[in-house]
Each structure stands twice: as structure tokens, then as C-alpha cells.
């Protein structure tokens, strides 16, 4: 059931991110639902499932964006693994805690992507990039509330790591 939901979500996010969200973007910034799902998977699922979910989301994003295939997917998986390993040190049941984790992950991801682009092409405008990193991350985190409830509803009752 969980996998069906994730794959259906990946499909709909792919459609919306490449069409509608671009039309409602402000200052060229749009919420990154691929990242939201990767982070929430890491917070609410077991590590292998979170890693696979981040892989699906990352590859979906890679397919619909310019740049090397596998770059976003690798980034997402690393983020998911790190969050998955640190999860037990965070109070993640609370919605605010989860949104804060999404915000932090988004800042790291957007900042990292901007850094890679600057190193690759050397053509980033500082103000729009900073706006994209910080305002874009806050915007993304704000949108994470809806998927949070989806994960609350469909997450497994006992995580494998808790059982071990």
C-alpha cells in the first residue's frame, strides 16, 4: 500500500512540479515536493524504505530537469540516510519538528545545488540565489504540512529499527 502511494505521489508531483507549480512560483521559486517526500520518508519509514523512496523522488526530479541523471537522486538518498540515522535523536512526532527538518534539509540541498552550479558554471547571481536558498526552503517547509498528515496516516506502526 505504502509503495503504491509513493509511486502515485511521485507521478503526480512530477506532473505538477513541471507544469502548475511553475505557474504559481513567486520570484521564480517553487516548492520542492520531491524533497519533502524524501525527507518525510526518512522521518517516518525504515532506512531501506526511506532510501528507496528518496531514490524514486530524486530520479523523478532528475528526469524532469536539466543536469546529470542521478545527481538529485544521490543528494536525496544521502539526505534521507543522514536523517534516518539521526532520527532517534530528534523529537520527530511533532509536526513542527518535521517541518524544521524539512527546512534544514531544503537549505542544505538548495545551498549545495547552488554551490555545485557555481563551481560548474560560475554564473550565479548572489541575491536571487540567496533568496532561492532561504525563502525557497521556508516556502518548501510550509508546504510540507499536507504530506506530513499523509505519512502519519500510512506509516508502519512499528519501525524495523525500533524492533531491533
Amino acid at each position, binding site marked *: 500500500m505504502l509503495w503504491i502511494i509513493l509511486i502515485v505521489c511521485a507521478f503526480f508531483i*512530477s*506532473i*505538477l*512540479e*513541471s*507544469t*502548475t507549480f*511553475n*505557474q504559481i*512560483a513567486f*520570484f*521564480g*521559486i*517553487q516548492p*520542492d515536493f*520531491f524533497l519533502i517526500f524524501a525527507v518525510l520518508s526518512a522521518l517516518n519509514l525504515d*532506512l*531501506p524504505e*526511506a*532510501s*528507496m523512496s*528518496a*531514490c524514486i523522488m*530524486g*530520479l*523523478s*526530479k*532528475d*528526469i*524532469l*530537469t*536539466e*543536469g*546529470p*541523471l*542521478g*545527481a*538529485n*537522486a*544521490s543528494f536525496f*538518498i*544521502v539526505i534521507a*540516510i543522514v536523517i*534516518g540515522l539521526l532520527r532517534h535523536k530528534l523529537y520527530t512526532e511533532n509536526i513542527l519538528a518535521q517541518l524544521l527538518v524539512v527546512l534544514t534539509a531544503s537549505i542544505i540541498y*538548495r545551498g549545495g*545545488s*547552488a554551490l555545485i*552550479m557555481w563551481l*560548474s*558554471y560560475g*554564473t*550565479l*547571481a548572489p*541575491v*536571487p*540565489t540567496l533568496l*532561492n536558498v532561504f525563502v525557497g526552503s521556508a516556502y518548501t517547509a510550509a508546504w510540507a504540512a499536507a504530506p506530513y498528515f499523509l505519512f502519519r496516516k500510512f506509516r508502519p506502526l512499528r519501525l*524495523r*529499527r525500533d524492533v*531491533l
Partner: protein
Amino acid sequence: MKTRRNNKKRKKRLLLIFLPTVIPLIVCLSLLAIPSKISDHIKITVSRPLSPIQKASLTAGSAVKKAFRWIPHSWRLSSNVSELEEDVFILENVVVAQKATIDRLETELASVTEYYKEGVLGQKPLLANVVAYDASDQRRSILIDIGSLHGVTENSVVIADAALLGKISTVGNSTSRVILITDPSSKVPARILETDDIGMVEGGSPAECRLKYLPRWGQKVEKGYKVVSSSIGGVFPDSLPIATVVEGIDNKGSSYRTLKLKPRVNPADVKTVMVLKK
């Protein structure tokens, strides 16, 4: 003995968690090693089945956006309909007059400029619809609904509203990806129309691009000067409008000047583009 067996079991369980966690990462990292041409081809082939749905979603989104703009607009204007009708009548006359001027200028242009003869008439333009935008807000590219079956080739020039929009980066059978001039990887040789100074237009942010590598002690450039393409490198045709100058950027210590530009075309508003087939 029991503890050792338990430890073994625990290790086995941890391995069962560790391997499926790391395998996707290894697969994704190995995808990075694929040559960009092949990975671009994989991407455009995989995304092809999505394009009809993306097109429908984009059309629906545009209709909703238009309706949201139209409702308050029509509310405001409903009070002076007759005034608007008068305006429409005047504007129709202006359009007719401007069409006549355009026809006359086109005839003059065709007879006097070599660019028009060789550049525009020599190339076969193809009309295309925008199917989707880039899913990342840090990259600027669009997907259009024509591909190699229609004769599109890599590096074909894409224009919209008589201005340069970008160039084709990847070609699929019936879809192609266009790198916009505002993308960080985009580089277009250009010159300032008024001063003839040559530089390079580079992307980097959603609504602006920069003209770099202008001679520091060149002619004075004012706001509103036009920047057009240069045929240096052989990819872009000469004299295609790109952007207008907004302001100069002070980069002390550099032997070059940089200017901030506003692109002539806003990619978010573009629905139809023209590809200059090579």
C-alpha cells in the same frame, strides 16, 4: 554461545537493513558516470509518455490562471464597457495601420539586409508548444512538443516573440528540451546594438541575465540599450534581440565590465515557440 548466536543474528539483521539502504545510492552514483549525451537521451525518452498529461495540466493551469486574472479585471471594467468598445475600435484601426507599416518595413528589410535573406529566409522555422517547465527552480529549461521526427537538431535556435529564448539541448523523437538564456549553463555571444561592444550573455537567475566580458574602458552604456546575438561561434544567428540593459555591476579589480540585463521574453509567459531548423 547464546550471546555469540544473538550477535550473529543481530549482524545479519543489520546487514539486511544496510544493503538495501546503500544499493540505491550506489546505483544513483553510478548513473552519474554515464556520458551526458546518453543520460539526456534516457531522460527525454522516459519523460515522453508524460508529455500529453503535462500538456493538459499546463493548459488547465493557464486557463485557471487566466480566469483568476480575468475575474477582478472584468469586475473593474464592467462599469465602462462603452468606453472600452470605443477603445477597441480605435485599437483595431491602429492594428490595421501597424500591419501596413510592418508589411512595408519587411519589404524594405528584405531588400536591404543580407541577414534577412540568409538568416531568416534560409532557415526553416518550426512552431512548437511548450509542454512542461523544468522541475527544479534552480535550472531554467522547457520541454517542447517537437523532436527529431520534425527535423529538430541539437543546438537549434529557439525564439519567441521575435527574441532569442534559448537553444535545443536534448532531442527526443517527439519532444525536445530547450535550455533558456537564463539557465546558469547558458552562454550566448552577444553585442550591444548601440555601441557594438561584444560580450557574453550568461544566465543565473529566473528573471535576469548578465552581459559579461565587456571591455572595461569601452563606450558608455546606458539603461535601455538593446543587446542582440552575435554569430561568433556559429550557433546563434546575428542580430537577434536578447535583452535590454538594466544597470551596470561594479566589479572592481576586473579588467572586464558586467551588465545586468532584462530578457526580452519572460519564459513563464511563453506558450508557443519557434525553432529555427538548421
